[in-house]
């Protein structure tokens, strides 16, 4: 990649300001709209100032500290470090002086892909790459110009390196901190050179994470850890049956319990507000609540399945229809058909859902572990009737997100409660409420057909699937206008304007068909049909969304095609991926690194899968064994990933490894089943997570690339389930078509 001179295109807010401290910076609006109306590309200066603020992303203080403002939530994916690395690289910062700070609410911090301030879809690095590089480079050139001006020499004789500017011929140097005051009076350059990849010193290196030290000392502040003066703590009981309502309650006993302040029906259920969490929890247990179960009292996994079996007999919306599918099936030498079924999945975020809100007459502060700052902001504005400027959203660390924290139901509860009781309130869900009232990865039902020619090659392929759309729940929450279920009417209008960008996003690749309609295998006659059906179980985004299901279905069925046609599952894929070179290469490298051509050791069997998530392909080869009782052991996973330019290889490895663990829980351990209109699981005893002894060895091989970075947070999830299922077929001859795989499926095999 060549270093391109660029026009910032956002010159209007690339201005220098110089403010007295952190408090002023927070109040400093860098909104694109506000800045556009400003003529100033000069600094804002004030007496006694000590911080240089060249743009919305960077602050440099006189002591040399470089603070990078982060507009994406840190939920473990290492985004604080990755985004800081991008800035520090172009800024030529001294890494030991780099700090991070979570962005406040401001349109300038919106995720360009969503149009709102939110984290998800593995978009953070991809959407920040250009903007942060330019911000870093422009600041670097500003500091060079400030040094040159100080010395009275031309800028071209000076260069920046590791936190200082150097005048080569005179060997003079000035630290960035020493240039703060000078730079504050100067314009930020709007055309600058970006570095060549070959000159990167930080990007691509295994830089230490900026949040590790606090996270090992118990000092990182998560939502559940927020403490403010006079804080009350609440917990919420939700209608046990999905779609149910609160009918009546008897709080006579609960109300008299120690520490209990309020017992209040709210839009999502009923809340107990107490001085302390344990008091609230005990009182909630003592509440006698009469719930109206609504229409779903008899809903069960079996009833949903029966409905979907019936629905799948009809054709659905044709999302893709290449060639002449019906004709090709007629001509095929051999036809195969299989049904795949996937269950609901819970997120199981280690930190249960929580939010702290303090609503006052003239303002509202919300402290929340959220992936959706804008949604939280809108909901708080709607509930309190305050203006957008009066509501502030403070993002804490997230104890897991995985998509669940893109929804704002828990934030709604805290704001409603604080608004009503006129005190700061922290809502903390019990684990049981967190599992039962998760917004699950949707269950789904898939009918697959393939037609093979006389040589065993697939010439026709049809994938018909039935499921709810995970985006519908999000749209409902974000857009009160189309959200009749639980949000009160008074909330509806304000959030409506959130609906457009989100709904637009729902139509993009990450919608219900992602990973199915865009499958890369070159099969001439190919049809994908979607039958949308919402049985009433709350659903939402779950790490890698629809791709987690479609990778399992498609990659398992590809192995069925290979077996039916007498072909090697690797070679079949390589033959069909000629027009998808990145996937082809990822698969080829994974097979090579795993030694696919050599036999594994006695009793160990291999399976593979490849999948692309939003432009990031990953391939996996797994080694499993199955004991006589049918218990599956995953020994080793060799995986490749092609995510373009790598910011931090350690983070890529951690994300791939972590995604494999996340995916394995859904593959061999846990699911959510529905009975009597509710989830039948409620804690980690009946929704067990993968443990250390079950964790396979993982090798991550990153495909070298100088392309722009793509995403890394989710792509590791989709391939693991089919790779394991394919290995089990190799081990036992049994084809896994439902998850999770239980020992009962394989016993005696």
């Amino acid at each position, binding site marked *: 990649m060549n270093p391109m001179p660029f026009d910032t295109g956002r010159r209007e807010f690339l201005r220098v300001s110089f403010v007295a401290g952190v408090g002023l910076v927070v109040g400093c609006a860098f909104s694109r709209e506000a800045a556009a109306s400003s003529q100033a590309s000069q600094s804002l200066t004030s007496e006694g100032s000590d911080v240089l603020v060249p743009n919305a992303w960077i602050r440099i203080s006189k002591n040399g500290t470089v603070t990078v403002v982060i507009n994406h939530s840190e939920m473990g994916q290492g985004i604080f470090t990755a985004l800081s690395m991008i800035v520090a690289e172009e800024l030529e910062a001294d890494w030991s002086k780099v700090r991070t700070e979570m962005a406040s609410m401001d349109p300038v911090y919106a995720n360009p892909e969503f149009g709102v301030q939110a984290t998800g879809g593995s978009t953070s690095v991809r959407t920040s790459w250009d903007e942060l590089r330019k911000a870093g480079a422009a600041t670097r050139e500003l500091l060079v110009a400030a040094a040159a001006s100080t010395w009275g020499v031309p800028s071209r004789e000076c260069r920046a390196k590791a936190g200082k500017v150097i005048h080569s011929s005179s060997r003079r140097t000035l630290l960035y901190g020493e240039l703060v005051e000078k730079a504050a009076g100067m314009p930020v350059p709007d055309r600058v050179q970006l570095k060549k990849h070959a000159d990167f010193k930080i990007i691509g290196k295994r830089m230490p994470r900026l949040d590790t030290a606090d996270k090992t000392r*118990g000092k990182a502040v998560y939502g559940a850890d927020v403490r403010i003066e006079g804080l009350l703590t609440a917990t919420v009981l939700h209608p046990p049956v999905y779609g149910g309502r609160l009918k009546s309650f008897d709080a006579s006993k609960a109300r008299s319990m120690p520490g209990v302040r309020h017992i209040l029906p709210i839009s999502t259920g009923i809340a107990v507000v107490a001085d302390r*969490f*344990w008091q609230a929890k005990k009182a909630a247990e003592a509440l006698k609540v009469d719930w109206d179960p609504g229409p779903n009292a008899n809903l069960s996994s079996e009833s949903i399945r029966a409905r979907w079996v019936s629905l799948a007999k009809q054709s659905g919306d044709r999302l893709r229809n290449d060639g002449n599918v019906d004709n090709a099936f007629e001509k095929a030498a051999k036809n195969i058909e299989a049904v795949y079924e996937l269950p609901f999945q819970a997120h199981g975020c280690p*930190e*249960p859902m929580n939010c702290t809100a303090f609503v006052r007459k003239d303002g509202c502060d919300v402290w929340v572990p959220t992936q959706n700052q804008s949604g939280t902001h809108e909901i708080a504005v709607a509930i309190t009737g305050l203006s957008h400027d009066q509501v502030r959203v403070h993002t804490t660390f997230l*104890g897991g997100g995985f998509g669940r924290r893109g929804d704002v139901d828990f934030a709604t509860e805290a704001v409603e409660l604080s608004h009503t009781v006129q005190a700061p309130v922290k809502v903390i869900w019990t684990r049981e409420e967190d599992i039962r009232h998760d917004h699950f990865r949707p269950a789904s039902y898939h009918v697959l057909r393939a037609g093979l020619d006389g040589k065993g090659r697939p010439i026709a392929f049809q994938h018909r699937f039935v499921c709810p759309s995970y985006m519908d729940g999000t749209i409902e929450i974000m857009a009160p206008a189309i959200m009749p279920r639980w949000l009160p009417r008074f909330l509806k209008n304000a959030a409506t304007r959130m609906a457009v960008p989100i709904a637009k996003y729902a139509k993009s690749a990450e919608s219900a068909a992602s990973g199915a309609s865009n499958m890369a295998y070159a099969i001439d006659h190919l049809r994908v049909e979607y039958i949308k059906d919402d049985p009433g179980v709350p659903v939402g985004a779950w790490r890698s969304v629809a791709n987690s299901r479609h990778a399992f279905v498609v990659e398992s069925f590809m192995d069925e095609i290979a077996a039916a046609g007498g072909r090697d599952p690797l070679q079949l894929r390589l033959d069909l991926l000629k027009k998808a070179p990145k996937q082809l290469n990822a698969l080829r490298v994974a097979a090579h690194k795993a030694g696919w051509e050599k036999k594994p050791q006695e009793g160990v069997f291999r399976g593979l899968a490849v999948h692309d998530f939003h432009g990031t392909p990953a391939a996996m080869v797994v080694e499993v064994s199955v004991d006589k009782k049918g218990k599956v052991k995953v020994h080793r996973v060799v995986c490749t990933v092609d995510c373009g330019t790598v910011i931090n290889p350690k983070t890529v490895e951690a994300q791939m490894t972590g995604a494999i663990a996340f995916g394995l829980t859904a593959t061999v351990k846990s699911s959510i089943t529905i009975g009597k209109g509710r989830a039948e699981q409620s804690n980690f005893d009946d929704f067990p*997570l993968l443990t250390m002894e079950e964790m396979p060895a993982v090798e991550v091989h990153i495909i070298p690339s100088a392309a722009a970075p793509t995403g890394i947070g989710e792509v590791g999830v989709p391939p693991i389930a089919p790779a394991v299922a394919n290995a089990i077929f190799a081990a036992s001859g049994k084809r896994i078509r439902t998850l999770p795989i239980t020992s009962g499926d394989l016993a005696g095999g």
Partner: protein
Amino acid sequence: MIELRVNKKTYQVDVDPETPLLWVLREELGLPGTKFSCGVGECGACVVHVDGEATRSCVTPVSEVKGKEITTIEGLAGAIGQALRDAWIEGDVPQCGYCQPGQIMTAAELLASNPHPSDSDIDAAMSGVLCRCGTYNDIRRAIHRAAGRSRT
């Protein structure tokens, strides 16, 4: 009033004796490093040491630990504590980080009783502490690294 010894300090707390130690640490003593996750002793995010023994504070009534020496992640000291922290930082173990205090406290107990644990010793000691981010392999490596260094 219940008298508690936490991180070598003495506290008097006025709470229901049935209150789990977890909530006393977090809400009364202002020590939020110990985490609430499952509330039923299934996940290990709330592990603290009670007289040196790794204990799930979410299911331990505060009345049961009167007069005992309680150590939380904030107070974890000594050669083992330091070696673990260094190893954790060197390996950049945490992702979301929420379970890590429980992981480190559990690992500290393991190294105190078994200074040179094998992989299977580590798996046996650590498999009750859940990590949804899947940092297990990095945890295992960090424990080995710390074991090599905490010998005095």
